[in-house]
């Protein structure tokens, strides 16, 4: 099993979630995050004091998937989150040793 993590632009969340649903994903978890990367930050000014702020708001989603579904999940996120401009974000794939569904105690693939 894999944990697919993606950092995406906040306004893409709905679209990505709907596409993943379509692709057969039955669950995901999203978290509000601040990202720093190639995308240039911005300047904020408060009473004349200028601050360079490199962090931009991102959403971090993570999806637990079965190995076989992982490529689909990755390509779905890629396609829907892409706008072509810097800051579209990244996807990372991590190995998962076990998954447990709290409600039933199911383990592994069945628990996803």
């Amino acid at each position: 099993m894999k944990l697919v993590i993606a950092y995406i632009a906040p306004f893409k969340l709905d679209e990505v979630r709907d596409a993943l649903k379509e692709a057969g994903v039955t669950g995901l978890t999203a978290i509000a995050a601040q990202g720093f990367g190639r995308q240039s930050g911005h300047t904020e000014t408060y009473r004349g004091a200028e601050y360079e702020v490199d962090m931009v708001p991102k959403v971090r989603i993570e999806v637990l998937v079965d190995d076989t579904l992982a490529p689909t999940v990755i390509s779905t996120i890629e396609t829907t989150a892409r706008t072509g401009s810097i800051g579209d974000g990244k996807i990372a794939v991590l190995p998962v040793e076990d998954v447990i569904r709290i409600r039933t105690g199911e383990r592994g693939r069945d628990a996803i």
Partner: protein
Amino acid sequence: MDSGDTAWLLTSCALVLLMTPGLAFFYGGMVRSKNVLGMLMKNYIAMGVVTIVWVLVGASLAFSGSTSIGDYSVIGDFGLWGLKDLGLSNELFGMSYPDNVHISFQLMFAIITPALIAGAIAERMKFTAWVAFVALWSILVYSPVAHWVWGGGFIAEQVGAVDFAGGLVVHINAGAAALALVMVLGPRLGFRREVIRPHSLPLTLLGAGLLWFGWFGFNGGSAFAADEFAGNAFLTTQIAAAVAATVWVLAEAFTHGKPTALGFASGAIAGLVAITPAAGFVGPLGSLAIGAAAGLICFWALRLKFMLNFDDSLDVVAVHLVGGIIGALLLGLLAEEAYGGVAGSVEQLGRQALSVVIALTYSFAVSWLLAKALDVTMGLRASEVDERGGLDLALHGEQSYALSE
């Protein structure tokens, strides 16, 4: 001059000023968090820009002298420019309180009217274009219409329509302009496709509370005295707001199954809007009827923007244009002579209807032309990137919340 009347009008001036921050929060709570400051600023700036315009020429054009086409007085003159000759007496307006208080009171109305429009163009209009729009609109639309209705102009004199506290001058005027501006500006990115949720309904309810509070100055002060007519306008204002808010949440409960806090706030404002032109002309039961009509019809009117597909983002048309029309017309029927000297009748209804058509048409047409002109010259709309990222950072270089440390 009467110190009691002066005291009440001074208080009313302050109350009406507070309505603009109140409105800012009413609107500000409904936008996404990336656009809060942009929204607040579009309201607050009216307190700055309109005051300056008003002192320089606005007050003069609305309330000083009269320039006529035939018998029809269509605008004031420049006699009062800069308020240089305002003085300390009450001779200009012949009220029981000083002229400077009357000018302040009218100023507060001139401020909130364009601020109302801001709800329609939320989350996408450029700040600079908005400032230009407000300044010019105040001169080209607000001052003339105020003159027609309250400054001795032809709507009062020839048409014979009445408007207690601004159904025509404020709400229909702002609502028609909102519609025009939205048609030129176009919808927000994602309109009807994305979930665009209010970022903080508590702020919206706070705004609604401040608006309700301030409205007592708006309507109560429009009796121009601290007397039984002010008392009646105060009471009808309270009743209409309460009934409309209650009817609105009932309508929601029947339609969607759940009464909402945003619905209560929206209904209250709809009721306050509808009673505005009528507050001093009807009694408690009349205000009950107007409130009920406003709650039902404005709730229904929310769907207009989806039917006709214009992104009036915070429903200025459904609440202010529709609400203002409801009040302006119903007072033609429900007015009782004992309260404000106007008796409801089919004729009066006709006069009211004519005045509505005139104000609506004029405001819509001039606002549309103004919007087009600004669009061509300076551009009305923020860039797509700025809209996506939010107006707060893009236009104002600020963030609304930094809650993490």
